[in-house]
């Protein structure tokens, strides 16, 4: 545990951005998430950790209603964004997803050029008035995702032609170009080398000044490095949620302790 470098724990704004209470998720008959209560704070990085198949991605997808697109998926409980219930029938999931962006576990660039991939969000949301503005948004997003240097000469090349790690960074750039209020990242560094990982972690830390970031990760070190809050999931339940330092140094639950010390998972 000594080699883990802890991120700065000062949480500047402590207002609750997303609050989930008693969330249940069913895939058909499979009860995938049971009684999850979490409060995600604004301008904070929250890490979700837990063994494979414990429901981290499932919960993440609840937060921007991506589960709506899965047939047979049913959600109970209440999730609010800035105090408004996001499962209220009056809420438009399309608008919600513009505010709560997502980077998926598997890179999924569109079969378009690199440029068009990043410009996709700004274009559909009308974030730019001129070509020059879009150019700027694209360049900034690619720079922040640490991809600009590699692709600046081939912005017109198809995004699907990039390497796996580059595709992952392209998807990150695509998500931040839309300037969401909350960014959900499902294992954003799973295909990245240590250098790119460090750059993405730097980006996440920087994003914290503007929005909330929720990151799913299998790396304890990464969770410890970038997050201020950590939630530990196990078998569809939220076992423990608290300040990252506390979770890693002084977990209350024996299951959390065994997981972070490598005994379960």
């Amino acid at each position: 545990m000594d080699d883990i470098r802890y991120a700065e724990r000062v949480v500047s704004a402590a207002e609750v951005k997303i609050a989930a209470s008693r969330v249940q998720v069913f895939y058909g008959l499979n009860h995938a998430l049971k009684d999850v209560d979490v409060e995600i704070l604004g301008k904070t990085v929250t890490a979700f950790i837990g063994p494979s198949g414990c429901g981290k991605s499932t919960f993440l997808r609840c937060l921007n209603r991506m589960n709506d697109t899965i047939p047979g998926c049913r959600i109970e409980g209440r999730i609010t964004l800035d105090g408004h219930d996001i499962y209220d029938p009056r809420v438009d999931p399309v608008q919600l997803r513009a505010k709560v962006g997502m980077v998926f576990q598997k890179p999924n660039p569109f079969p378009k050029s690199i440029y068009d991939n990043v410009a996709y969000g700004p274009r559909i949301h009308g974030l730019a008035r001129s070509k020059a503005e879009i150019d700027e948004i694209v360049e900034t997003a690619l720079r922040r995702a640490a991809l600009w240097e590699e692709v600046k000469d081939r912005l017109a090349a198809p995004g699907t032609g990039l390497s796996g790690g580059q595709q992952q960074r392209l998807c990150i750039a695509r998500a931040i170009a839309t300037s969401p209020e909350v960014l959900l990242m499902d294992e954003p560094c799973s295909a990245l080398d240590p250098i790119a990982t460090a750059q993405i972690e730097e980006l996440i830390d920087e994003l914290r000044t503007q929005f909330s970031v929720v990151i799913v990760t299998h790396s304890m070190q990464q969770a410890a490095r970038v997050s201020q809050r950590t939630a530990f999931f196990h078998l569809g339940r939220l076992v423990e949620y608290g300040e990252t330092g506390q979770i890693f140094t002084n977990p209350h639950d024996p299951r959390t302790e065994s997981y972070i010390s490598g005994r379960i998972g």
Partner: protein
Amino acid sequence: MSLGILVLAVLILAAAGFLAGRRRAISSAGGDPRRLHSLPGHYGQFAALLTAVPALALLAVWLMAQPMVIEQRVASLLPAGDASTSSLVMADVRRISTGLQRLAVTDGLSPRDVAGLSPEGLAPRLRAVGVAVTSMGPETLAAARAHRDLQDRLGFWMVVSVLATSAAGLGLALARIRPDFRARNTTERFVMVILIAASLVAVATTVGIVMSLLFETMNFFRLYPAQDFFLSLTWNPQFRGGSDLGIWPLLWGTMYISFIALLVAVPIGLLTAIYLAEYAGARARSWAKPAIEILAGIPTIVYGLFALVTVGPALRDWFAQPLGLGASSSSVMTAGLVMGIMLIPFISSLSDDIINAVPQSLRDGSYGLGATHSETVKQVILPAALPGIVGAILLGASRAIGETMIVVLGAGAAAKLSLNPFEAMTTVTVKIVSQLTGDTEFASPETLVAFALGLTLFAITLVLNVIALFIVRKYREQYE
């Protein structure tokens, strides 16, 4: 021995070979199958394949070659004549030969009796066993006897040699079985050869079709100048000779009708596919999909009737006559519309499959950025599916080009170069049919032109299909 029994005998021998091969493999390994290179069953398979396949292949070749050999021998017994009479005489020889065999069976004649039969009074006896003969002279009878004789002898040798090959294969296989013999690899290779041979049949047939077209087309161009065929703008066949056989009026009709058909089928088919793949719920899909497939199963002649009795008159009464564009119920528009309806299910079910093949992760990516359903369809799914859809459209186009029945009944048979869609026109396929119906020989340019037309059509659809396959293949690579 009849053919069926011969094949059965070979198969029984192969089954025996399987058992013997397996037994021998196990005993050669001293009863311990683990000492064998392959599973005991592989040795059995090896023996069975070697018993059956060469023997059956020999049988197939023999059956194809035998009639040719016999006819060549028999032809030398007949008086020489020109090609068509000697082929008629040969047909008689074959019939008499069959009749002689039947007579021998029904009347219990010995070979000596058959040899002693005289031409007089034979014809009625042959008719009694169901063989009608037109000419019956001493030469034909002699030739028929020789034919019968050769057939019997060759048939006997066929049975002998097929069984011998089979037995030899079995013996060879058993001799080769030893514990270190790689039966599995050999069987695999054997199976591969059989598969290749099977696919060669399809390829060979295609080559055969093209060659026969090519051959007749060359005959045509010997009688009719190629530049007139490809460049002349009139189509006016005269069965007394001196016809104009320019392809352009027909090609124009084909293109015009196909174009209208695609104009109808592509938008409707594509929108249907988008609805089915992206918007329809499971319930709507479960009835809409089969309904569309039924549409695809309707024979084109039925569509033709629909064009003839419903669409054609309706178009004439509601559009062509009021607008002063024509008074014919057969028109390019009629055929094009109905053909378009025929193509809708084709385009929509192909496009539906292609849209469904677009990975869900792309949809998720788009929704995750806050795109609406229609933005996702327009900007992500359709571009991703576009190459496949283009392929589907090209395949649809080549079907439209080859369609005949709807055109006959919907567009008429008048070859014309006109822009008016309410005028009767015709297509290449229709003219191929009409040039070949009637009992003229394949010797005048008026009939041979059908082959040149067919070859042109074949070339056009081939190019379209190759482009379509190429595009579809490129599209597949994208997600693999």
